[in-house]
Structure formats: structure tokens, C-alpha cells
């Protein structure tokens, strides 16, 4: 890949940390570290998939970015300006407009007492302050953009009258209403019928490719990560262990955990027992003062130093990075 030709960075995260309190007292050890030292760049019109098992910190990371949670440490830089500066300049509304989030459960995120029209017109009214005629036109355009035809009829419906896939399209239309730069999509297809999942992925792909929207795509399904996202980052217990070009990460994984993850993915025609290259083991609870590599207890390549420090970043190929002591 030609690195000089990269699209501009829209959202940049540096050394992000998020701790949650776990006990009553406020001593250091009564916190658990859900996200530890995570850094990445999200570029214009590109998707970054975040994969990893439950509890690896994917949603927490996205929630810090949308300010649902406050970060414990690190920097978030949006369009060249630190998040703190948006806060200091009373620009948080502007930040919130440009960084939208869509959720796993499209039903839970819509209000049952309001029509689809209301859901999409509301953000338009708040951000555009245009008159009714303009708003109507925009609502119908957005519904068509997300594939809900006929738009006028759909607009009159209520959430319970739509299928799961249609509701997720409404959630996407609502996020688009305010012209966001970035959409953080937290498992947007995992609760949908298998037959409509691809339609939503393809819709997001069009928004990315034709409208230049950047996506952070959180998923358990590494095959869809490769399908949809240019970049993939693999998380384990709050740590980003391998990331870069999606094809490199999925076809030539270098980190022992990514290798484990990929060797486990079901694949048609590959029947029979498959040895997993890792010890069985419980997933550790990370604390602020826990040392070492989070995968060390299960890692077949672990060295002595793996219990001492979390490895620095190593670039192993163009657009391919890992954090591992034993490369």
C-alpha cells in the first residue's frame, strides 16, 4: 500500500485508558482496567473493525469516544483538535454531531411512541433549523438513502411495524441526519436476521465509499470485519494486540492471540477437530497495576519478560503492527 496516498486522519486515539471502579474503597486496586493504552487512527472514508471476545473492551472504547464514559487517560483528537479543546470551547455539541453511534439492538434505540418521521426529523430540526418543507424533503431523502422505500409510507410507521433490519436502517438514517464524519457501530448486525445482515453491511459500505463517512465497526465476526473494513484491530483484555490492513491481519496474523482467534473461526468444508495453539485458560481481570502481556498465561510463545511488561509496538510490514515480545 502506498502510504503517501492515505486519506486524512479524522479521529485519532492515543494511549486511551478506561478504568471502572470495582469495589467500595478508592484505593488503586479497586479499579479494573477495561481499556489499556489503546492507540489508532481512523481515516476519512475508511472503516476500522475492532474484533475480540466478550469483555475485551470494544464497546467501552466506543463509549469513551462518544463521551458516554469519561476517559481515564490518553488523548482523543478529532479533526486535528483534542477533545478537551472541544470541551473548553463549548464545542461538545459539535463533536457529538460529528461522531455518531449506532447500537446492536435497533429496537431499544428507537422510541416506540414516535413515528419514523419524528425520529429523523428531530435531529434535523435541532441541527439545521430549517422549515418544514425542507425537513420533509430531507427525511424522505435519508430514508431512500438507507434503502427504505417508499419513503413517505415508511415515515408514517412506528418502530414496531418494522422488521429488525428496517429498524437498523432507521437508526442509520437518524445518525446520518446530522451529517456525521464518523459512525461508531457497535455490533450493528449481530441481532438481525442472517438474511438481512449483509444488506446493512453493504449499506454501511456505500456510505463509507460514496459519502466518505468513517466507520468504527465493532464485531465478534472476524469474517465480516475482513469483508467490510479496510483496517482491523484485534483486542484482548483491553489491549490492542494486532492491527493494520484487514487482509494482512486476517490472512497472515502474527500475534499469538490473533492466530488463536483465526484458527477457531468456523469454515464450511473444514470438518473435524482443530488443534488450538493455546492453553485453555481463564481470561484475567486487568487492574491498573497488573504487569505484563494479558495473553501470557495462555500463550504458547511466552517468554520470561512477558510477565513483566506489555510489549511496545512493532511494525512487521507496511500497515501491519503487533505488540508482542516474541515476534
Amino acid at each position: 500500500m502506498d502510504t503517501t496516498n492515505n486519506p486524512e486522519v479524522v479521529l485519532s486515539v492515543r494511549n486511551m485508558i478506561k478504568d471502572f471502579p470495582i469495589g467500595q474503597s478508592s484505593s488503586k486496586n479497586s479499579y479494573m482496567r477495561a481499556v489499556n493504552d489503546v492507540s489508532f487512527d481512523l481515516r476519512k472514508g475508511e472503516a476500522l473493525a475492532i474484533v475480540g471476545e466478550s469483555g475485551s473492551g470494544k464497546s467501552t472504547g466506543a463509549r469513551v469516544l462518544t463521551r458516554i464514559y469519561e476517559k481515564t487517560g490518553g488523548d482523543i483528537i478529532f479533526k486535528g483538535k483534542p477533545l478537551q479543546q472541544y470541551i473548553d470551547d463549548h464545542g461538545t455539541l459539535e463533536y457529538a454531531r460529528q461522531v455518531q453511534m449506532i447500537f446492536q439492538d435497533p429496537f431499544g434505540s428507537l422510541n416506540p411512541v414516535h413515528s419514523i418521521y419524528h425520529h429523523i426529523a428531530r435531529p434535523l430540526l435541532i441541527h439545521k433549523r430549517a422549515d418544514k418543507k425542507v425537513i420533509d424533503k430531507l427525511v424522505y431523502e435519508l430514508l431512500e438513502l438507507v434503502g427504505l422505500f417508499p419513503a413517505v409510507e415508511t415515515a408514517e410507521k412506528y418502530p414496531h411495524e418494522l422488521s429488525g433490519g428496517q429498524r437498523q436502517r432507521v437508526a442509520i438514517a437518524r445518525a446520518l441526519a446530522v451529517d456525521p464524519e464518523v459512525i461508531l457501530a457497535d455490533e450493528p448486525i449481530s441481532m438481525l436476521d442472517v438474511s438481512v445482515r449483509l444488506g446493512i453491511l453493504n449499506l454501511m459500505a456505500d456510505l463509507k465509499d460514496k459519502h466518505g463517512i468513517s466507520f468504527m465497526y465493532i464485531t465478534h465476526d472476524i469474517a465480516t470485519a475482513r469483508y467490510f473494513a479496510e483496517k482491523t484491530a484485534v483486542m484482548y483484555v483491553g489491549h490492542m494486540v494486532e492491527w493494520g490492513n484487514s487482509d494482512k491481519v486476517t490472512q497472515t496474523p502474527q500475534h499469538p492471540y490473533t492466530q488463536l482467534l483465526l484458527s477457531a473461526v468456523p469454515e464450511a468444508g473444514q470438518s473435524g477437530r482443530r488443534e488450538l495453539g493455546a492453553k485453555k485458560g481463564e481470561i484475567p481481570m486487568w487492574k491498573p497495576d497488573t504487569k505484563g502481556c494479558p495473553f501470557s498465561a495462555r500463550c504458547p510463545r511466552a517468554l520470561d519478560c512477558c510477565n513483566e511488561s506489555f510489549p511496545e509496538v512493532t511494525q512487521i510490514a507496511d500497515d501491519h503492527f503487533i505488540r508482542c515480545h516474541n515476534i
Partner: protein
Amino acid sequence: MKEALLEINNLCVDYVSANGVARAVNNVSLTIAPGETLGIAGESGCGKSTLAFAITRLHKAPALISEGEIIYNGRDVLKMSDKELRDFRWNDVSIVFQSAMNSLNPVITIGEQLTDVIVAHKRISFKQAAVKAKELLGIVGIHGDRLKSFPHQLSGGMRQRVVIAIALALEPKLIIMDEPTTALDVVVEREILNELYDLKEKFGFSILFISHDLSLMGEIADRIGVMYAGNLIEIGDAKTVFSKPSHPYTKGLIASFPTIHGPKERLYGIPGDPVNLLRLPTGCNFQDRCADCMDICKKEDPLLAELNVDYHAACHKL
């Protein structure tokens, strides 16, 4: 083909409600041979779980078996007495459901739960049963020390393995698994699949494996049946269903799953939305989503027809 262990003929299961009758399983016929894994695939609401419950008569009102036969080893399950049914459910078939890991009794240790099942159905002492329980846990890859654990002390994957151990306790000949690994992470899912492959080799039981994950299905099943709106619309050997599907719905479903390896190209999946069982059209249920739809499709139901030896599909175009 070997003599069938389970044979289902023209099974119909209805849900009766004030809004009408929804036929969740419509005229389904299939067989499972000894030692075979039959996969049932299809989107949410197509009737997979209803079928699984009906086979063991565990369906509850408002579900009703309105027609058909379920023949297990020559015996008609629908005609069994309560006692016969109880024996059938434990000694011949057992079931693992998706949420089974949450159905373990929270206040009883997993060791006791296993021993209880064994003692209730086998003429052996508690002591012998406890030894057997430990052995079973070992088989599913859980250390014997865990016998004294309560369900909440185990991870989801471990609990699901306990459920599989309970399902194996009485050495059934058929295990029905309804989305047994759907709620689990892929590494844990793989650990359980590995156990399952080993167990199957050791005990030789048949599996009815229900999943919406076609990649997983294509890996584990010998034969695959695909359901749409209560109908079995294609059934045959897994390899052909996967590599040369015949029915437009199966084609679309397979094209809805990006693969982890192999070429990366835009997939098109299936347009439209799943049908409502209370508002099925005349003719083929898939007509509104089918690019190949013809006039006849809107008038007549396509019937399951033999395309090849042991290979059937229901589509007017074929």
C-alpha cells in the same frame, strides 16, 4: 442409505393465537441416520426451534402438532404414553438449547445436578453416579474439582459444557442441539466443537444441529436441511448444499456469509425482509424476495422434489 434412526413424516406444527394460526412447521419430512449429523439452517423465525421441540414433544401451548408422524427406531413418538415419553427423552434423545447454560439450577452444584440425572434414570447408587459424573465432566474438558462449583462460578462456555455433559449422561443415540454455541465466543465455541467431534467418534450418536450460522453448519453437518417460513425448501449432502445450492433462498443465504479466507468480493445476500407467518402469500413463500420469480410461483406452492439421489429442493424453477 442406512436405516433411519429418526424419521419425520409430513409434520405440521401450528401456533394458535387470537390473530390466527401460524404454521411454524409445515409438512416437514426428513430422516436422520445413526451416527449422522443433520444440520437445519434458516433465518430467525423459520421454525427450527419449533421443530426441535416438537420432535421430543416438548412444545408447549399455544404450539400444537396438527399433523404428521415422528418415528424413532420404529416407534411413533406421538403415540407414546407419558412414561414412554419420559424414557425416550432421557435414554434415547437429549437436548441442548442455546440458553441451556442459563437453565442450570443456580443453588445446586453442578456435580449434584449431573448425579441427579444419572440416578433418576439408571439403576445405580449415588456413589457410582458421582464417579460417572466426574468422568463426564472430564469428557467435556472440565476438571473434576469443579464438581462442587455452583453454576455462577463457571464461565458461560463452561456452563454450556456442563449442559452437554448432562445431555451425554445417559448415552443417548440422538442429541438435538439448538444453537448450542451461538452465545459463546469463537475460541470457546471451537473448544466445545472439538469436544463434540471427539465425543461423537467415541459414542457414535446422531446429532440434529440447528444453527443460523452457515459457516459452522457447513463444517459440522453431514447433511443440511434449509427451512424458510416453516417449510423445508432444500435438503441434501452438506457439500452440495454449500457449493452448489439449488434453491434461490439457499443461494442467497450462502451468499450472505462472507468467508474468512477465499476471494473478497461484494456479496449480495437476500433482498427484502423475512415473511410474516400470519400473512403468507399464495404460492411460493419466497416470491417477494426472489429474483427468479415466475407467474406460477404466485399461484402454486412449490413441492419438495428429488433433484438427485437423496437431494431435494422445492422451487418451480428447478
